[in-house]
């Protein structure tokens, strides 16, 4: 028996009080003179015995009451073990299908081992097939039939994902806790070192899991791979592209390799490189002329090895003219665009050119040709312009609104309508959220002075990317339909701040420009399993589309109209058309961690194997289950009952005493 609040047991010391009252006080007798004792007898009277017995009963009840109360408040509980019905046994056959299983005949070997395990099952045994890579997929439900199990094993294909043993064991723990069965897990894998979790305890399965590990392949086979490729996703103005690649070898001797750069299947450049033993070599193609349009690039090394899938590395590149940015300024303030335009043009890699235009004369009927629109310190917009801009944003466009004093005079922010007022108070820049895509990589806005600022009121869902020192928002990011909007709480022309005179102005302009133009989500290549955003909200936009590496449409009609994202699971090129109409060519490469085929040491495997239940599993075996039973309520009830009896008994006792008097 244990206690949750054992210090309440100190209350038992209170039994000293009734003991003192009953045993000590009771025998304090004051001698009383009496005329003659000739009618008294020198013997303990029977009534005294009864009285003494009653007093002892009363004392016992009072002591019991105090003890019961103390025990009840101490909240005792008993942990008892009761036999429970034995868990049924579930045989789980888990097969590693990660990218590394493509090496040689590992997957075939794993399947053969799995088939053998299925055949070795007893007649009524339940079994389930799991596929393991970066996540765990149940290929079958728990089955007694052998046929579905064999079919699931046969259908297993290697993926381009990395395997995660930590995720695998986490799923086993969930099954252990929720299935109510004894798990006899057979895991067949190449046991890659890179699949291990950072903490070994993540490999400990549940208490009802017996883990058997089967390693396919042997030793640490050599493998070369193109580990990474750095290539621009877009090139502009006819400038050549610079492409670099890193070649790696694991457990490999030094070797001469030929590295070829291919565009759309054609070799446009080739180089020989010496890859050091178990080392890395970098190859650079400094000047590759990229034709207009989107192209499928690949860096491939030769000769290949037993894992040819990582001998090539895909990337996408697009050559296009710089995209235009419409800078709208108020009448008479043509110089407003000077700083912004100069800053943007100082970064030609951004692929953006600024076209200033007077707000009153600008043609806003068709803004789809512009990467985004800048509204510098606008006043009240006419209805047609505001409607056109809102429509542009909702369809995937973007606007940078610099809300200066003129905007504040209008009393509200154009396009969004929230209240705005100008604060005539010098300010500096405080916190910047560099984790936000709008200002990713931008340095501090040191020493930037603002003579005043527009006090903005963020809406629900807004992200405050930067703040003034006093805490007021400086830059607010907002999603509107499929588009984006950035609201800057000052002007961009240097009239209300000295921001354009600081070096931090250029990265601010470039990064916000790239964010608004949607360039930040256009990498030349991604790792398999990376999700791509199809739409920003379910309620708006047209149908999205994804065409996989094999040329098939990956989305059904429902997904095309409602899916927010899509996982790029396979190695190859995906053509993605977002709901806003933007088309992307995304190169997907297998996780190169899988190229390191170094196996887990045998001693580590033995350690992992021993983390599971080591006793042989017995179907229907009786096991003991511990249960904690807290019975303080019963003690309290007993104390109440004793108190009741003591009250009745004590009242009768006292009444009898009064009758005697």
């Amino acid at each position, binding site marked *: 028996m244990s206690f949750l609040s054992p210090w309440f047991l100190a209350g038992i010391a209170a039994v000293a009080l009734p003991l003192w009252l009953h045993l000590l006080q009771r025998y304090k*007798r*004051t*001698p*009383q*003179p*009496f*005329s*003659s*004792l*000739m*009618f*008294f*007898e*020198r013997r303990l*009277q029977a*009534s*005294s015995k*009864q*009285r003494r017995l009653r007093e002892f009963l009363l004392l016992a009840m009072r002591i019991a009451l105090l003890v019961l109360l103390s025990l009840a408040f101490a909240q005792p509980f008993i942990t008892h073990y009761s036999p429970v019905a034995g868990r049924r046994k579930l045989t789980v056959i888990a097969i590693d299908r990660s990218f590394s299983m493509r090496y040689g005949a590992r997957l075939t070997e794993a399947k053969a081992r799995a088939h053998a395990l299925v055949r070795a099952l007893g007649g009524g045994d339940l079994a389930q097939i799991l596929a393991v890579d970066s996540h765990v997929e149940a290929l079958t439900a728990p089955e007694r039939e052998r046929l579905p199990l064999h079919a699931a094993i046969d259908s297993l294909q290697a993926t381009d994902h990395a395997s995660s043993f930590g995720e695998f064991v986490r799923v086993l723990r969930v099954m252990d806790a929720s299935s109510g069965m004894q798990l006899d897990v057979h895991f067949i894998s190449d046991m890659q070192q890179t699949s291990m979790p950072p903490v070994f305890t993540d490999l400990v399965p549940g208490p009802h899991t017996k883990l058997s590990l089967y390693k396919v392949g042997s030793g640490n086979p050599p493998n070369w791979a193109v580990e990474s490729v750095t290539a621009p996703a877009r090139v502009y103005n006819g400038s050549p592209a610079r492409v670099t690649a890193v070649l790696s070898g694991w457990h490999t001797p030094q070797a001469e390799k030929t590295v070829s750069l291919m565009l759309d299947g054609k070799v446009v450049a080739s180089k020989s490189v010496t890859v050091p033993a178990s080392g890395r070599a970098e190859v650079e193609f400094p000047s590759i002329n990229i034709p207009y349009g989107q192209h499928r690039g690949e860096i491939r090394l030769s000769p290949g090895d037993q894992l040819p899938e990582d001998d090539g590395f895909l990337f996408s590149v697009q050559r296009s003219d710089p995209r235009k940015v419409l800078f709208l300024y108020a009448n008479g303030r043509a110089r407003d665009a000077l700083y912004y335009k100069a800053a943007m043009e100082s970064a030609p890699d951004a692929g953006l050119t600024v076209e200033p235009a007077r707000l009153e004369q600008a043609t806003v009927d068709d803004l789809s040709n512009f990467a985004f629109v800048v509204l510098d310190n606008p006043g009240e917009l006419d209805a047609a312009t505001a409607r056109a801009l809102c429509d542009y944003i909702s369809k995937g466009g973007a606007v940078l609104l610099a809300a200066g004093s003129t905007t504040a005079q209008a009393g509200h922010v154009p396009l969004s309508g929230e209240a705005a007022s100008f604060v005539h108070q010098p300010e500096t820049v405080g916190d910047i959220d560099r984790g936000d895509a709008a200002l990713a990589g931008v340095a501090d806005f040191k020493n930037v002075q603002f003579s005043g600022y527009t006090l903005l009121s963020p809406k629900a869902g807004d992200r405050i990317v930067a703040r003034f020192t006093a805490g007021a928002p400086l830059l607010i990011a907002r999603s509107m339909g499929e588009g984006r909007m950035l609201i800057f709480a000052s002007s961009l022309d240097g009239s209300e701040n000295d921001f354009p005179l600081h070096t931090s102005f250029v990265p601010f302009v470039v990064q916000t420009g790239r964010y608004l133009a949607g360039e930040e989500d256009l990498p030349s290549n991604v790792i398999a399993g990376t999700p791509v955003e199809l739409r920003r909200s379910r309620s708006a936009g047209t149908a999205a589309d994804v065409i996989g590496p094999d040329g098939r449409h990956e989305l059904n009609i429902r997904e095309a109209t409602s899916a927010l994202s899509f996982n790029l699971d396979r190695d190859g090129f995906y053509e993605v058309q977002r709901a806003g109409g933007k088309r992307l060519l995304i190169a997907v490469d297998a996780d190169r961690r899988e190229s390191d085929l170094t196996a887990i040491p045998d001693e580590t495997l033995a350690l992992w194997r021993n983390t599971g239940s080591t006793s042989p599993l017995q179907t229907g075996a009786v096991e003991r289950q511990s249960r904690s039973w807290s019975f303080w309520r019963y003690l309290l009830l007993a104390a109440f009952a004793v108190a009741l009896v003591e009250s009745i008994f004590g009242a009768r006792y006292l009444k009898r*005493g009064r009758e*005697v*008097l």
Partner: protein
Amino acid sequence: MAIELTNRFVDPAVLASISSIDLVAKTVVDGFIAGLHRSPDFGFSQEFAEYRAYTPGDDLRHVDWNVYARTEKAYLKRYRGETNTTLMVLLDASASMGFGSGPVHKFDYARFLASALVYLAHLQRDSAGLIVFHDEIENFIHPSARQGQLMRLLHGIEAAALGKRTDYRRPFFELQQFLKRRGITVLISDFFEEPDAIVDTVLPLRFRGNELILFHVLDPAEIDPKLREPALLIDMETSEAIETSPEYAHRDYRQKIQAHVAALRTKAEGAGLDYFLLPTDRPLDRALREYFTIRQGRM
């Protein structure tokens, strides 16, 4: 006689506040007498009592010649004053008489009673004497009707002090030695003795023609002890200690004391003695009335 006299007497507790024993006696007796009806059966000396036929040898001075003249028969005229008797009060002064649960202890009550009796005897011109005793005779005042006897008796009663144990044999032995004339003997005690022993001790006096009255003075707490809790009781005479319980005192003791009283009454009445139980919380009228009844019979 159906006269309710209870209210005519002063409460013993009030009597206890009176310091002078003679004043106590006078208060008690005067109150008692004031409540009596004038009756031919009760009177005092020099009052006519009866006629009796003359017999030779009678004193001729007592012949009523008026009756003789009318009837030619000689009758003697008798007066009550001529029926004077001797009252002997035996007052128990043992230690147990000092017990009292209220303002009046048994010994106080006994002294009030004794003083009232001797005062009443004095009013009737009876001789009165006193023996104060415990295990020894503390004071002995011979009976007399002379002038000053009352004050001697009252002083003897007032000066009486509690002694040790009770021993009835000594005072009654002494009494038998000098009491030649028949009279009334009053024994005031709590009688914590076996009834047989008490009656056997006092019975010889009765054989000599004495009227013997036993006034049994008990405190209410002795008749019905009220204990709230078990108590350690100390015998006032022997200093013996005994522990008792309220239940015992309430049931067993009461039965025993009642049996003792009943036995004493039975034994006394069987031996021709008069017995009266006098709890100390009651007025003294019964004692005085009893004395009067006996006194009348002695005339």
